[in-house]
């Protein structure tokens, strides 16, 4: 089949290009580890999310400028994961694709990458996304077994092969359990966050309050039909498997802490930390013209983004605190304050990540000494994660950013329509997603 004629290479822009438009999104409901998607691979889920997006926007056989996605826990066979998913998605097979990995920030990063290509006038349309499975995680074999297997493949005689095999010890055959512990500290993310939580004096009650709001807001958003246009069911799962619409403060208060347990005030529980999850999410981006030519909506535009990293390895900063740096820098560049945002999305890796990040933004001393910028003030809680976030939805690492961008764009569009505000009055949303390795990605969307 020939390439789609409409999607020719865009002309070199005469002036700065308009900002990339978020046209829509699609994700599959997020599953719990070992749950509905236990036999689904990353490729299965990413293909499902892409196919749903193709069906929603009638993109069959459409050649897009580029597709970028990725996974955090990735099998080596999935080296070309996104391209493989594109080939199974119904898009024109001439659509190129590339993989990206920036831990939990992966799909904010892919949105950023695709948006930049659009803004530079290099492509006029693209899809960004991410996927992760903890149910179908790659199992690593011991280094001795791996090296022996590699040597075996090079061995030429039976004697050489036998010698290699007899050198193996039973212990070499034990698989190495997959984990996302920080290689430099050996600590899990939860243990790191327990340290940060204590440092900022975040209470158990405050964390449970965030968790409760996440479940309630997500359940309400489902009931309002917000996700009818954002989610396509998969393998019989209609809603996020972790969502507990009926949870209460009392139920959350009963859970025992799971991280930082050596301290008497340990406060991170299974209720206020994200569960291990499986899922995929995608976002359709393009120029306004590309969208208009196809009668597709423009929900919002990508304004700007910023990444940051902190030196957690030497203990100078909490592992998940980079959002406290990325967001102020981004706002300073754009000349915006927290009050300029109608919606604020802080990824709930842990309830306390949200709380420590907000505490840092409001802390004059921290902001001036560490970030070198004025404090941002308090976040209006009525604008925070209004349609729920990762605590309730779950957190398939690389899919979370695209989930947030997709949801936020829909919220911005809805508010713009409902407010009946003048077209020139922007409705803005802010995203902060922390990531392993002491990183974070922040982004501004505007409708």
């Amino acid at each position, binding site marked *: 089949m020939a390439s789609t004629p409409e999607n020719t290479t865009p002309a070199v822009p005469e002036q700065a290009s308009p900002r990339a438009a978020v046209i829509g999104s699609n994700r599959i409901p997020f599953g719990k580890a070992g749950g509905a998607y236990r036999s689904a691979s990353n490729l299965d889920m990413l293909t*499902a999310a892409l*196919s*749903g997006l*193709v*069906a*929603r*926007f*009638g993109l*069959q*056989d459409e050649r897009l400028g580029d597709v970028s996605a990725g996974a955090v826990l990735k099998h080596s066979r999935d080296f070309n994961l996104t391209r493989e998913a594109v080939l199974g998605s*119904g898009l024109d097979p001439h659509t190129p694709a590339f993989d990206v990995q920036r831990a939990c920030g992966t799909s904010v990063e892919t949105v950023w990458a695709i948006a930049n290509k659009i803004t530079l006038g290099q492509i006029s349309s693209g899809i960004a996304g991410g996927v992760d499975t903890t149910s179908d995680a790659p199992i690593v074999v011991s280094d001795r077994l791996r090296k022996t297997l590699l040597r075996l493949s090079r061995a030429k005689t039976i004697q050489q092969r036998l010698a290699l095999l007899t050198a193996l010890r039973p212990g070499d055959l034990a698989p190495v359990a997959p984990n996302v512990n920080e290689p430099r500290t050996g600590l899990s993310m939860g243990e790191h966050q327990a340290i940060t939580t204590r440092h900022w004096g975040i209470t158990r009650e405050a964390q449970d309050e965030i968790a409760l709001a996440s479940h309630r807001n997500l359940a309400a958003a489902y009931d309002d*039909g917000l*996700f*009818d*246009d954002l*989610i*396509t*069911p*998969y*393998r019989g799962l*209609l809603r996020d498997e972790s969502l507990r619409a009926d949870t209460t403060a009392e139920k959350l208060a009963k859970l025992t802490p799971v991280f930082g347990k050596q301290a008497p005030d340990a406060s991170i529980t299974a209720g206020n930390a994200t569960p291990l999850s499986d899922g995929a999410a995608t976002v359709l981006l393009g120029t306004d013209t590309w969208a208009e030519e*196809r*009668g*597709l*909506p423009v929900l919002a535009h990508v304004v700007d983004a910023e990444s940051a990293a902190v030196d957690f390895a030497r203990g100078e900063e909490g592992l998940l605190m980079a959002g406290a740096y990325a967001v102020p820098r981004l706002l300073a560049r754009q000349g915006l304050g927290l009050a300029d945002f109608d919606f604020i999305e802080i990824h709930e890796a842990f309830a306390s990540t949200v709380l420590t990040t907000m505490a840092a933004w409001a802390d004059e001393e921290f902001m001036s000494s560490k970030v070198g910028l004025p404090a941002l003030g308090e976040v209006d809680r009525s604008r925070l994660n209004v349609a729920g976030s990762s605590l309730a939805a779950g957190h398939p690492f690389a899919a979370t950013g695209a989930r947030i961008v997709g949801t936020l764009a829909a919220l911005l569009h809805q508010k713009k329509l409902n407010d009946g505000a003048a077209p020139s009055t922007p409705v803005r949303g802010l995203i902060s997603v922390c990531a392993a390795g002491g990183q974070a990605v922040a982004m501004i969307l505007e409708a």
Partner: protein
Amino acid sequence: MSDTYLDLVNSGATKQVAKTLGLPRPARLRRTHADAVDQPLLPGPVLLLGAGAQADAAAEALLSWDLDVHRTLPQGQVGAIVLVLTELEHPEQMSDFALALGGALRSLAPSGRVVTISRPAEGAEPQVAAARHGVDGFLRSVAKELRAGGTGNGIVIHDGVAADSPGVTGALRFLLSARSAFVSGQFIHVTTPDGATPADWTRPLEGRVAVVTGAARGIGAAIAQVLSRDGAHVIGVDMPASGEQLAEVMNTVHGTALQLDITSEDAGQRILELARSRHGRLDAVVHNAGILRDKLLANMTPEKWDAVVAVNIAAQLRINEQLLAADDLGPEGLRLVSLASTSGIAGNRGQTNYGYTKAAVIGMTRSLAPRLAEQGGTANAVAPGFIETEMTAKIPPVPRQIARRANSLQQGGLPVDVAETIAFLLSPQAGGINGEVLRVCGQNLVGQ
């Protein structure tokens, strides 16, 4: 969903056994091949019986489709017999026509066609009305006599409709073709000269935008496929919970998926907005979504009654009102087809709620027809009989076998049979067919 009995009596040793025992032998019906639509249109030449302007017009149409047309019975088998009865003025005149047809029936090829073309009895003098209405009982009896997948149907041409109107030639072509495989014992009334002959008979819906509700599976998915094959862009609507199957179907037919509960207040608006923004037009809506909540009336609960009414009729009424309020739809007016059911015509034990809503659909369709005609549109209903779907596969084996065999073709229809009929009613050539309830039931033994 497979019909094992049909397979057995049509192949190998079991075919001989069935023949010897004189068991009913339902035939494999000739159906449209997706890659070779209407090729061939018929399994053999056409025998055209009758005279007059209508017979000449029919001959012209048949010849324009490259069919081999004979006015007397040729050697060998014929693919179809067209009996023109428009000049019939008195019952005594029927004898020649009836016996001529009778003499040719044994020459009819498997899945052959008998089509009568006649005039309506309403408003005619008594002997004329008698002669014309007699055709009704005659044709339905002929259809029951046919074997090997043959069907018999009629076209009734109303006053003011020219012999070569698009509706007449359109209906003739539909009834001759494999598209009407499971339609038998039915009359299609062409009431106005409206409509247009399509530029390409195999792609009559080219460039049109059609909405299909309940498109995720079964009959709805088949409708989406056939409409798309005929050239339409399909917007498939289904419950958000059926989104996965809906996306799959829409990606197959190059359509657009809209996850929407049709009982929501603004369902019509949402459909309109999507059609407007993506395509700038909306030409057709197929109200296919429907639910069953079977229960004897003596045991009926408010939940079961109300749910069936909400989905099967109330939602359609609300959506139609919202669509009719729009004045910027397609250039040719809106074409509606609603799914009725033989249960809504003949009734069915345990289906008072379903039967009520399906008969209500017929009432609504007849009321909408003149209203839509003002803007160039039409409203018709299609009433499927026993169709092999996931839903009917759940009927216990014995009642299922009985239901399957209780029609002239002695088998269940396929979703595609319903879809083909709907595609015809939405086509430009069917513009003169309005307010009709066309059954796709293999001439079910109950009801007309």
